[in-house]
């Protein structure tokens, strides 16, 4: 019922049909799809109930970062269903309250150990690019990815990328991802998907996949865990149908599912503008994009693309409230003055079933914090980020970082950072990579030459150590 049948850029192919049980009813799914996607595809918005006020809750980020889609699966509570692939006959139940462990849990499989010289956590553009660099120098790294597929958020970017020929400018993001993934698969680089790295203890990483606990021993570790969408406070922000803009992108561009019929986008940065345009491409109505700042934050060309299709962009406007019973039914926006104070009487009521938030991203630093790497709060980089040197080495000497986890930027910069971090690790291993590394650092600085990168550069100075 929420299927995207035709699309100007993408073609969707489905795996074989599976069936699973949701609250006693049979739900159809496709092999390779996650539980949350299959439920949403068949029209189910509500995944849980809030513990105290019993408010309905749906998913929010759809990429395994938040806890909004947690459900009870085969008796086990608090399972992130947005990254859990459907299996035949799986039993899924709506979550109520905090969830209780069943009296009997099937015994966990015996833990096993893996020894690897290098491990990479996260397979987005930074992680994949690093793995390929290691391969080029004869080192086989192990990639650990918690989503069912490799590629991170690059697989859902249908727009053509900026940059120069070196960064494959003019190529669509998902096509860049396909090339990187093909390279990984063809060169038999080891990777494990559906695998969550949950702790780091000196040279050991704890990883879970299904009921299998793995201890991965490694000399060097590259953390490229990306970022998560920010939630902002307003009444009704927990009503099903309020999504991160990235979740809408996952639904429509990865799984071919319409996130809604009619959408209001909050935030006119690049993410908000790009996702709004992609919603139009998926055949969905975008009522407006609202932006609290007095000017559009993303690239003007992205705004112009959207305006040409008649979508208004309202600057100095913010979301006041979202209303709805079991799903978003209305959104109310209001104009704000220079001091961001609401101007009474300027409310606009929008009849929408979906509100997408693109109000910024937060680096996913949880593992770095747990591992004891020093972090610093830098507003222009998106929040807490690791302190690190020019080689992307953290204060924990064996842990390196790359991509959005060290500051919110672009896929093109993430690819270069992954490459540089890998070269730096290779250098530590005694290989001659310094010249190549210096060249790549120069390329990275060139990419940051635009006025848009000024604040980022200032921010990066704050976290760079010797």
């Amino acid at each position, binding site marked *: 019922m929420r299927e995207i049948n035709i699309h100007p850029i993408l073609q969707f192919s489905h795996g074989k049909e599976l069936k699973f049980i949701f609250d006693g009813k049979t739900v159809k799914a496709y092999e390779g799809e996650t539980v949350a996607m299959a439920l949403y595809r068949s029209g189910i918005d509500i995944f849980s109930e809030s513990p105290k006020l019993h408010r309905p809750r749906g998913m929010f980020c759809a990429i395994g970062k938040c806890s909004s889609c947690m459900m009870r699966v085969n008796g086990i509570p608090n399972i992130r269903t947005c990254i859990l692939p459907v299996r035949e006959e799986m039993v899924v139940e709506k979550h109520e309250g905090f969830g209780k462990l069943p009296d009997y849990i099937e015994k966990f499989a015996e833990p096993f150990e893996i020894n690897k010289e290098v491990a990479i956590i996260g397979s987005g553009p930074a992680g994949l690019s690093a793995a390929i660099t290691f391969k080029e120098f004869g080192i086989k790294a192990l990639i650990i990815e918690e989503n069912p597929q490799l590629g991170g958020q690059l697989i859902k970017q249908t727009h053509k990328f*900026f940059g120069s020929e070196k960064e494959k400018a003019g190529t669509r993001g998902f*096509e860049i991802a396909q090339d990187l993934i093909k390279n990984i698969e063809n060169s038999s680089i080891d990777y494990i998907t559906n695998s969550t790295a949950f702790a780091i203890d000196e040279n050991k990483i704890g990883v879970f996949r299904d009921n299998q606990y793995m201890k991965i021993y490694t000399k060097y570790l590259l953390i490229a865990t990306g970022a998560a969408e920010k939630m902002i406070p307003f009444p009704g922000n927990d009503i099903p149908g309020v999504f991160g803009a990235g979740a809408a992108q996952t639904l429509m561009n990865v799984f071919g599912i319409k996130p809604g019929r009619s959408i209001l986008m909050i935030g006119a940065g690049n993410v908000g503008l790009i996702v709004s345009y992609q919603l139009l*491409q998926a055949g969905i109505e975008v009522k407006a994009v609202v932006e609290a700042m007095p000017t559009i934050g993303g*690239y*003007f060309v992205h705004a*112009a693309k959207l305006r*040409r299709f008649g979508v208004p962009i309202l600057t100095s406007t913010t979301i006041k409230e979202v209303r709805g019973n079991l799903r978003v039914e209305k959104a109310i926006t209001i104009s704000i003055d220079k001091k961001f104070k609401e101007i009474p009487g300027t409310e606009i009521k929008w009849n929408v079933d979906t509100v997408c938030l693109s109000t910024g991203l937060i680096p996913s630093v949880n593992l770095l914090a747990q591992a004891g790497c020093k972090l610093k709060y830098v507003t222009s980089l998106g929040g807490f980020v690791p302190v690190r040197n020019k080689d992307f080495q953290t204060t924990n000497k064996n842990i390196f970082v790359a991509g959005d986890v060290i500051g919110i930027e672009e896929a093109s910069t993430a690819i270069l950072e992954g490459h540089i971090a890998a070269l730096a690790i290779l250098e530590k291993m005694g290989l001659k990579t310094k010249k190549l590394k210096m060249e790549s650092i120069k390329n990275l600085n060139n990419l940051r030459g*635009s006025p848009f990168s000024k604040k980022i550069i200032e921010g990066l100075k704050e976290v760079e150590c010797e």
Partner: protein
Amino acid sequence: MSNYLKYGYLEVKDVVSFPSLKIITKHPVVVSECIQEIPCNPCVTSCQFQAISMEGINGIPVINFEKCTGCGKCVSICPGLALFLVGIKGKKGLVTLPFEMLPVPLKGEKVYLLDRKGKEIGQGDVLRVIFPDKSTKSAVITVTFDNIELIKSVRNIRSLK
């Protein structure tokens, strides 16, 4: 310059560099609506006639209308969909634009002409449709229309259906 960052579109008067009538009656040439310093240069590297130049990768594209042959390669590669061909053929205006939506209008089809705000400003005929990427239905479409003045404002189209 008008307040394009407040509203998200340019006014006709903001398009600083527009080719002369003499040039565009010979053959169409490219006009750029890429006005911000962003790290992007495939228009420069894709042009085999060196008709587009830029200072570094973060510069703003500058078109040499004398060198541009109107081949349209840059229109199809521009990630920002910010390049258009404009021309005058006989007594008709002509605009070539990137189009990434469905349905893609067919050659010979009548379409609404839209301006930078998506407002209908007339009707035109689809003269040519090409699909530069083999893997997608993303198109580059040329439309013609009677009111020559509209070459300055037609930046999108919509099927009449």
